[in-house]
């Protein structure tokens, strides 16, 4: 039994032409997308930044700083160790408030929906689902504190 429908010459040639036509129209479309997507030079991670010196900050004290146009906090844990994290709340992105002075046994508080964080940036109450995102911290020999984007 032969139930194949005959394809007319016109239809066949149309289909044959359709393939290069799609390619010819699709390629510039991909190129247009590539053009509009910003070049690598605009996608570089922010440069490491010096935000202070270890001698400016006592144990359990903090320094607020700007990194990549957004607020961050550095806290000195003990003689040697410091932590730094973003103050952008992991709930919906408000700026978390930092109490003044010594942070021992204190909490950071998010004004938007009452999220709470401990001075290490861990979420300890309210809606935030994750700790505040940490930055990379490096201490130079002279005590300069240098913040960088953490490579996770």
């Amino acid at each position, binding site marked *: 039994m032969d139930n194949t429908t005959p394809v007319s010459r016109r239809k066949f040639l149309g289909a044959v032409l359709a393939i290069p036509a799609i390619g010819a129209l699709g390629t510039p479309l991909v190129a247009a997308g590539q053009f*509009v*997507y*910003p070049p690598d030079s*605009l*996608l*570089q*991670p*922010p440069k490491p930044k010096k935000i202070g010196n270890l001698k400016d900050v006592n144990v359990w004290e903090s320094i607020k700083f700007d990194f*990549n*146009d957004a607020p961050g906090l550095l806290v000195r844990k003990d003689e040697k160790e410091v932590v730094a994290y973003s103050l952008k709340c992991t709930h919906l*992105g408000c700026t978390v408030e930092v109490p003044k002075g010594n942070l021992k046994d204190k909490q950071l508080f998010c004004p938007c929906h009452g999220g709470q964080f401990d001075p290490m940036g861990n979420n300890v109450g309210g809606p935030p689902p994750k700790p505040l995102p940490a930055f990379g911290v490096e201490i130079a020999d002279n005590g300069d504190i240098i913040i960088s984007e953490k490579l996770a």
Partner: protein
Amino acid sequence: MSWMEERFPGIGHAAKEIAEHKVPSHTLNPIYCLGGLTLIAFLVQVLTGIFLAVYYKPTVAEAYASVQMITYEVRFGAIVRSLHHWAANLMIVLCFLHMLRVYYTGAFKKPRELNWVAGCFLLLLSMGLAFTGYLLPYEQLSYWASVIGAETAGSLPVIGPDLKIMMQGGIKVTGEMLSRFYVLHLMVLPAITILFMVAHFIMIRVQGISDPM
């Protein structure tokens, strides 16, 4: 007219058909004017926008200052800017009220489904124009509204991060975003909006206005 008629036979008839087109009496109700009023708001935007573009400069260094100049130095500048501001707001309100009219009179039903879809695109395009225009004065409100818009886009699943980079033209809100929004606001979105409006109006003419409920 006869001069034109001689060269383009039938043009007088076509012009008459456009100018004196009859509509059913149930459309003599202000709620049936909302679509046309949206169009008028858009035409105000096109006209005032052309004037604003004469002085506006889309760079971080000059955007704010150029808008200040339009407002305080250019003759009639404050009026042109206010018109553009208020007609932008009105266009969104009117477009939405028009959509409600279409919804509550059931005018979206067969055979007008595709005109409803075209209308939905027109509403999105209007909001896109409003959002991209908001960044252009590059004042505090503009800047933070755009930060919020980019962050919101960035929180979408899967496409979010790339969409945010595409909007910002980089990893944060900078002059690159201003350039992008300028191009969208002055060229891309108006052109697409006009295409959709033409399609919208042709469909209305072909299908006629819907019957009363």
